[in-house]
């Protein structure tokens, strides 16, 4: 419909069959709106909510199979009597990961993204409604296994944690720099396999630093337990800092 005259012709072509005294050149409307604005708004709201509850929130990202769920299971079994956890599981189809988490006795909720390759802030906002935030210290979010898209979507987390397993090769940070740049923490997992691979840990560390000089790096094995204590200590310290922040 032409909004100037209210006539019902749909296309410009047909429109000019009748006479008008106004012209039908298009109007230009300035928009200047960020395409991720909606996600970013919801993420900001999530962040306010988490902060108000003194909740430490981590968003775990990686390629499929790097060991995110195993890292969560191991961490929960070690610390669940000491800290109060909840886990949001992002998965395209299955509920396998959420079932694995639930088996540790920690509350878990599954978000099925269907064809979606990442979680967004809206999904997380509804996902956390399943938990009692007043009685939590740490919210762990396992994102969909994908090193590309999750980098662009803020969920309102305190930090992104990128998990890299050494079977993937040391050059992953150079190939997927967005994801490694977006992460404050990089976990190099499966170091129990070092003797069996020609993975160069030094080189890998260097690559991570090139992409993200500030990244905090943990090298560990969920299988052998090597390096896990440093990760646990870091978690404890973060929770303590978060509590203090919420009280002040």
């Amino acid at each position, binding site marked *: 419909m032409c909004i100037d005259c209210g006539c019902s012709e749909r*296309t410009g072509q047909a429109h000019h069959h009748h006479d008008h005294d106004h012209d039908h050149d*298009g109007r230009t409307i*300035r*928009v*200047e*709106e960020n*395409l991720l*604005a909606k996600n970013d708004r919801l993420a900001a709201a999530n962040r306010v909510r988490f902060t108000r509850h003194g909740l430490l929130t981590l968003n775990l990202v990686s390629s499929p199979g790097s060991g995110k769920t195993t890292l969560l299971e191991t961490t929960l079994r070690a610390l669940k009597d000491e800290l109060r956890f909840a886990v949001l599981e992002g998965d395209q189809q299955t509920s396998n990961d959420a079932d694995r988490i639930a088996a540790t006795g920690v509350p878990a909720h599954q978000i099925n993204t269907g064809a979606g390759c990442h979680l967004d802030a809206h999904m997380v906002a509804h996902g956390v409604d399943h938990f009692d935030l007043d009685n939590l210290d740490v919210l762990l979010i396992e994102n969909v296994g994908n090193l590309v898209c999750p980098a*662009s979507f803020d969920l309102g987390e305190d930090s992104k944690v990128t998990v890299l397993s050494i079977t993937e090769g040391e050059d992953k940070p150079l190939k997927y*720099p967005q994801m490694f740049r977006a992460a404050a923490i990089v976990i190099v997992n499966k170091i129990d396999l070092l003797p069996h691979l020609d993975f160069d840990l030094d080189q890998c560390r260097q690559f991570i630093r090139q992409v993200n000089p500030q990244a905090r790096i943990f090298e560990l094995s969920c299988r052998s337990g090597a390096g896990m204590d440093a990760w646990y200590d870091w978690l404890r310290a973060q929770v303590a800092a978060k509590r203090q922040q919420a009280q002040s």
Partner: protein
Amino acid sequence: MHELGITQSIVDIAERTTRKHGGGRVRSVTVEIGELSGVIPDAVEFCFEVCSKGTLLEGARLVIETVPGQGRCPQCQTEQAIDNYSFACENCGAFGLERVRGEELRIKELEVD
């Protein structure tokens, strides 16, 4: 492939804005996509026809303006052209180049009948 979602927001924002300004048919929509944004313009173009079908944007022209990457060295402050795979300062070799431009992902303007 989050370009589908990105394209969906182009259509959503454009429709909402057009309605707010009295409605009409969108002739063209101009978006800015930074080369460091992680979004591939070709993929957005590919998704646009599907996403705009049955909306005020059906048949509209999608104009994509790409914004080249520009970075600044945290050490020596040199400004330089960068892409996603530029890790070191071309002047002093320092890492951690700050992104000054190139992460844009915005809808700029609409032309409405």
